[in-house]
C-alpha cells in the first residue's frame, strides 16, 4: 500500500473488511518482526549523526559568509591507528554479513563461527578506539574530566588552559564522534550477545536467522556512519 494510497482512502465510505483498502492481517499471537523497529531506530541514529555532521561543518566554517567559523580550525594528521580501526570495522561487518548468509542457509556451524568473529572484531575496534584516545591524550589533547566535576573548590573553567582539549576544534569533534559512535557499537554488542546466547542454545530458536540478519544490518549501518564520519575528519 503506497503512502498516497493510504492517505487518500475514504474511510467513511467503506464499512466492512472486504473493501479495497483493507489488507490488515490477523496478527493475534504472531510474533512481531523487529525489522521495522530497527528501521525506525536507524532513522533516529541517522538524524543524530547528520546533526553532528552539520555542527561539524558549521564550526569548521563552511558557512563563513553566514558568520560561522572562527578561523581556528586546523588540519589534523590522521593517526595511523584510525585507518587500522576502520579496517577492523570493515572486516567485522563482513563477518556479520557472512553470519547472516549462513543463518539464512541454516548452516549452523558457519553461522556460529562468523558470528563470533564478527563480534570479536567489533570488540577489537572498540579497544582500538580506546588506544587511539589514549594516544591523543599522550600527544597533548587531554580530556580533562577530572579537572571538571571533581574540583570542589574554585571554578573548574579557571584551570590552566593546557589541561583541556584546547586549540584545534577538529580534535574535539574527533573525541565527540568517537564517543557517540562507540556507544552505538556497545549497544550493538549487547544485541550480539543475545544472538550468541540463542545461537548456542541447545535447539535453534525460531527467528534466530532473522536476529542475525538484523544484527548484520545494524553493523553495516554503523560502518557506513563511521565511514561518513571518517570522511568528515579527512576533510579538515
Amino acid at each position: 500500500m503506497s503512502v498516497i494510497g493510504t492517505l487518500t482512502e475514504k474511510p467513511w465510505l467503506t464499512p466492512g473488511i472486504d473493501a479495497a483498502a483493507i489488507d490488515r492481517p490477523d496478527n493475534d499471537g504472531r510474533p512481531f518482526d523487529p525489522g521495522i523497529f530497527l528501521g525506525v531506530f536507524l532513522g533516529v541514529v541517522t538524524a543524530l549523526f547528520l546533526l553532528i555532521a552539520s555542527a561539524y561543518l558549521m564550526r569548521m566554517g563552511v558557512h563563513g559568509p553566514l558568520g560561522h567559523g572562527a578561523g581556528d580550525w586546523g588540519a589534523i594528521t590522521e593517526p595511523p591507528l584510525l585507518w587500522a580501526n576502520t579496517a577492523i570495522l570493515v572486516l567485522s561487518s563482513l563477518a556479520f554479513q557472512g553470519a547472516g548468509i549462513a543463518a539464512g542457509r541454516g548452516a549452523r556451524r558457519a553461522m556460529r563461527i562468523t558470528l563470533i568473529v564478527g563480534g570479536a572484531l567489533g570488540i577489537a575496534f572498540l579497544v582500538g578506539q580506546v588506544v587511539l584516545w589514549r594516544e591523543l591524550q599522550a600527544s597533548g589533547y587531554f580530556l580533562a574530566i577530572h579537572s571538571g566535576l571533581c574540583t570542589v573548590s574554585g571554578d573548574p573553567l579557571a584551570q590552566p588552559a593546557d589541561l583541556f582539549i584546547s586549540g584545534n576544534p577538529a580534535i574535539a569533534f574527533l573525541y565527540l564522534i568517537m564517543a557517540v559512535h562507540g556507544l552505538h557499537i556497545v549497544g550493538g554488542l549487547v544485541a550480539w550477545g543475545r544472538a550468541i546466547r540463542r545461537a548456542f542454545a541447545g535447539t535453534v530458536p525460531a527467528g534466530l536467522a532473522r536476529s542475525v540478519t538484523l544484527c548484520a544490518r545494524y553493523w553495516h549501518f554503523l560502518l557506513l556512519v563511521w565511514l561518513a564520519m571518517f570522511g568528515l575528519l579527512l576533510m579538515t
Partner: protein
Amino acid sequence: MATVTIADDLTPLHHPKTWIGKYVWSLDHKVIAIQYSLTAIAIGLVALVLSALMRLQLGFPGTFDFIQPEQYLQYVTMHGMIMVVYLLTALLLGGFGNYLIPLMVGARDMVFPFVNMLSYWVYLLAVLVLVASFFVPGGPTGGGWTLYPPQTITEGTPGHQYGIVLMLVSLALFIVGFTMGGLNYVTTVLQARCKGMTMMRMPCSIWGIFVASIMALLAFPALFVAAIMMLFDRLAGTSFFMPAIVSMGQQLGHEGGSPILFQHLFWFFGHPEVYIVALPAFGIVSDLISVHARKNIFGYRMMVWAIVIIGALSFFVWAHHMYVSGMNPYFGYFFATSTLVIAIPTAIKVYNWLLTLWRGDIHLRVPLLFAIGFLFTFIHGGLTGLFLGNVSVDVPLSDTFFVVGHFHMVMGVSPILVIFGAIYHWFPLITGRMWNVTLGKLHFWITLLGVYSIFLPMHYLGFLGVPRRYYALGETAFIPASAHGANESITIAALIVAAAQTIFFANMIWSLFRGPRAGHNPWGAASLEWQTPDVPPAHGNWGPRLPVVYRWAYDYSVPGAARDFIPQNEPPADGERHHPT
C-alpha cells in the same frame, strides 16, 4: 536486533503474579502509562509551585526575602523546562500514547513491552537527576530554559557549576528513555493494528500521537547533540559553543566556539517540540469534540493531512526563534515565510473543529467544555503567533512579556486544557468510575477564566516593553505605574488558578473510590478503546480474540442506525454501504 517480542513471552500473555510484578516492574502498557502520567504530574506540580513563586515576586517585589535574583532565574528555568519536557511531552506521549495506542488500534500491548518498561524507568531516572539539581551546591541552573551558552556555563549564572551539568545529563537521559518509548509507539501503530484497522480508520488521537512520536524521534537528537557538546564544553574544556571570553576579569581557556551553533541545534529541537506537544493535543481534541457533539469529525482526511503537513513543515521554521540573534537577514525572510505557511493547515484544523460543533448534538459535558476552552486559547495564541512570526514585528516584541503571553496561550494552557479534558474523558475507562460533574465544571470555569486573567494582561505588559526573565522592573521611566497594578492582579489570578487545581485532584481521588460506576462505554463512543470486554480493560485488553474493525472511528448519528453511534467493531448491516458525511 533480538528483542523480546510479545510472541516471545506470550502464551498467551505474560501474567505477573505478584503486586510488584503487576504495578512496579510492569510490562503492561496501561500500567506504564499510569506510571508515566503520575510521575509527570508530580514533577509538573513542582513547576506549578515555581510559577506561583515567580508570580509572587513579580506581583509583590521585595516582599519575599528568600527570592533573590538568582532564585528567580532558577525558578524561570526549571519551570519552563519541566513544563515543556518533563510534564507535557512525557504526559502526552508517555502517558496518553502508552494508554491509547494499543487500545485504539486493537493491539494487546506495545510491540516491545520490555523496551517500553525500560523507557519509563529511564524517564524516572531523568526526573530524579533533575530534582537532584535543586540540592547541589549552587542550586539548579538559571540560564533560562533555552540554556544559551556562553552564559549558562560561565560564572555569574546561578547553577553554572553543578546545576547545569545535572540538567544536561537529565535531558540526555530523558531523550534516551523517550527514544525507547517512541520507537514502540511508531512500530506499534505500523505493525500491531488489528484486522480491518487501516491507517485511515485510526482515530485522530492516534494520528496526532503517531506523527508527534516520529517528530520527537527526529528532533530530540538535536537536543541530545547540543547537550553532549555543551557537557564537553563545560567539563572537558572544548570550545564547541564557547567563544574566547573574559569572565570576571579572567581570560577563560575557550576560543572560537559558536553560540549561534547552539541556538540552531536547540531550536531545531525546540520548535518541533512545540508541535510534539500540540499534535497529540490536536488529535485528542478532535475526538473529544466528535464524541460529545455526536458528529463525525468534519473533514477527517483533511485533519490527518494537516497533522502530517504541520509535522513536516515544523522542521523548517526553527530560526524564527532567532530573529534577534544577528543571523543573516535573508534567513529571517525565509523563516518568516515558512512560519506563516504553517498557519494554513493549522487554520484548516481550527475551522474543522468549529464545523464539527456546528449543528452537532452537543452535550456540554466536562470534556467538551475543556475542548471548547482549548479552541479559545489556541486561536488566541495562534493569532499572536502570526505577529511574532514576522521579523519586523518580532524585533521590538522579542524577549518581552508579549512572548510570554503568546507561548503560554498556545503551548502552555492549550495542551493543558486538552489534557484535563482527556483525563475527564478517559477516566471512566481507566478506573471504571465517573467524576463529580459539578466539581468538574467548577474546575473548568475557574481554570479557563483564571488563565485568561493571567495571560491576557501579559500581552499588554509586553507592548509596554516589560522584559521577560527580569526579577524586578526597578526604576523604569517608560513603564507606567499601571503595569504594577496589572502584575498584582496577574499574581492573584495565578494563585487562584493554582489553588483551584486542588478541586481537580480532590475530585479525582474522591471518584477513584466513591465515584459512580461508569459501566461500559458511558459516552457512547465509537472508537475501539471503549469496546473492550472488561472495564477497565484487563491485561491483554481483548480477552481471547482480537477485535475486528469494520468501519472508521466516527460513525455518529448515522441516519437509519439503531443508536446514535456504531462501534468500530460492529459488522456492517445488510445493505449498509454509503452514508452521508
